[in-house]
């Protein structure tokens, strides 16, 4: 039985509650009767092969797609970091971070930039930033809104391997400090096991496995329990791993 069954969960502790969610694009069903609850402050990772509806689920939570069936409830303050930074080229970094907020948010915007290690970059143009820097601006833009639910749609996928490790570290640190509920969509099993409190694998539109990661931070990729989780999730993803 799923330990996060919504019936057993006190409702006020939840950041996301989904029941019976179905979504199809044309003839292709991507989500079918999905039930899922995410607690406040929980770092939740969604794994799954391409086309299993991970991103669709995230887009429904962000309000970018509509469910066909079922109930989706989420805490009101939600922000998204996409795979690409999606900054507005015609506005400077600080204006990008505080976009849609009143001008009194500028100071908070500067603090958010400092938090992601971009102190003093507020006046720069997005085109002058490296990929990693731009993605950190996107992270600051999400954090400055003080989200209750932070939606991360493969936010590290387009970064080079070294930058990706640094960004993962930064996201782990920021999420530990601000404690939003995080929904991380990723293809990277190691990333999920490294960052998340709970990892699920989506397959054929439903949860194939739902596991709490019971390891202290920072997590050592080479430790046996880490490898155990990795093997478990890879198996559920249909990747056969060599046994040691």
């Amino acid at each position, binding site marked *: 039985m799923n330990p996060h069954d919504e019936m057993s969960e006190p*409702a*006020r502790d*939840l950041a996301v*509650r989904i029941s019976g969610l179905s979504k199809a694009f044309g003839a292709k069903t991507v989500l079918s009767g999905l039930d899922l609850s995410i607690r406040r402050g929980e770092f939740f990772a969604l794994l799954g092969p391409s086309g299993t509806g991970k991103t669709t689920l995230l887009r429904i939570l962000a309000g*970018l797609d*509509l469910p066909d069936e079922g*109930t*989706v*409830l*989420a805490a009101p303050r939600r922000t998204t970091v996409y795979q690409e930074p999606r900054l507005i080229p015609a506005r400077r970094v600080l204006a990008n971070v505080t976009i849609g907020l009143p001008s009194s948010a500028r100071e908070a915007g500067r603090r958010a930039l400092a938090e992601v290690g971009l102190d003093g970059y507020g006046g720069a143009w997005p085109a002058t930033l490296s990929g990693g820097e731009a993605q950190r601006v996107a992270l600051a833009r999400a954090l400055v809104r003080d989200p209750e639910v932070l939606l991360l749609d493969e936010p590290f996928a387009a970064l080079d391997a070294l930058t990706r490790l640094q960004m993962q570290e930064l996201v782990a640190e920021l999420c530990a400090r601000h404690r939003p509920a995080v929904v991380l969509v990723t293809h990277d099993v190691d990333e999920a096991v490294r960052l998340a409190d709970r990892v699920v694998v989506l397959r054929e539109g439903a949860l194939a496995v739902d596991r709490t990661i019971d390891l202290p931070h920072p997590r050592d990729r080479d430790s046996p329990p880490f490898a155990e989780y990795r093997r478990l999730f890879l198996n559920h993803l249909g990747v056969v791993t060599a046994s040691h």
Partner: protein
Amino acid sequence: MTAMTLERVHPADQTATRPAVESAGLEVPRYLGSRRRPAALSAGVRIGVPLLLLLAWWYGAGSGRIPPDVLAGPASVLAALRELAATGQLAEYLLASAQRAGLGVLAGGGIGLLLGVAAGISALGEELVDPTMQMMRAVPFLALVPLFISWFGVGETFKIVLIAVSAAIPMYAYTYLGVRNVDRKVVEAARGFGLRGHRLALGVIIPSALPNILMALRICLSVSLTGLIAAEQVGATEGIGYLVTLAQQYFRPDYMVLCILIYAVLGLVFDAVIRLVERLAMPWRGHVVAR
């Protein structure tokens, strides 16, 4: 946004009986995307505005609120249309104008396309062509009428050359822009695979710039109508531009309005033709429009 707005905006999206905001402080995510509009509604709205204008015209003329010397009523315009059609002049005029406009747009558009691609692809081409074309763009082509008459007389050559010049300029400008905006990385890769010269231009660059080129074609076709009016004012005895001259000379309000309607219908026809060409010439684009 409040729960009330949510329920009003899309009541059918979630179980209707469930309140949008739960006691736990959770809400139904507000849909930010655009909704699919029913095709029938979309088509209805599309033709609704022109139809309303027509109705207002009909009503205004019929009730006497619009005096006939201000704007001829639908009945007299229809009568003028019937008269023209019955004598065979309408078909004759349309054919004559179509021939002039067709040849002019073909020649002018072709030249504009060549120059635009040349300027877009090579730095030398840009240096050679662009300053002159930018200067030409500032010259209203109607200013060329007296000069062209003195060169070519008032015959067919003059008319076709005038339309060609008017079509070449927008075709050049949009093609140049389109070619400049072709993904440099794709061009780089194609060069890496050995594509050069006309194979690069025809196989990679022009197809990628096609949206702009078709946009240019739309503009060329509309500009050619202006060209027709100017060209058929002198030395013509037929043509839809000549019809404007007739209406003016004999002060026929019904012909004046008829001309406007003919041009409006031609605008519709051009749009339909270009849409069709877009579908046929760019199968890779699908028909998805981001709004």
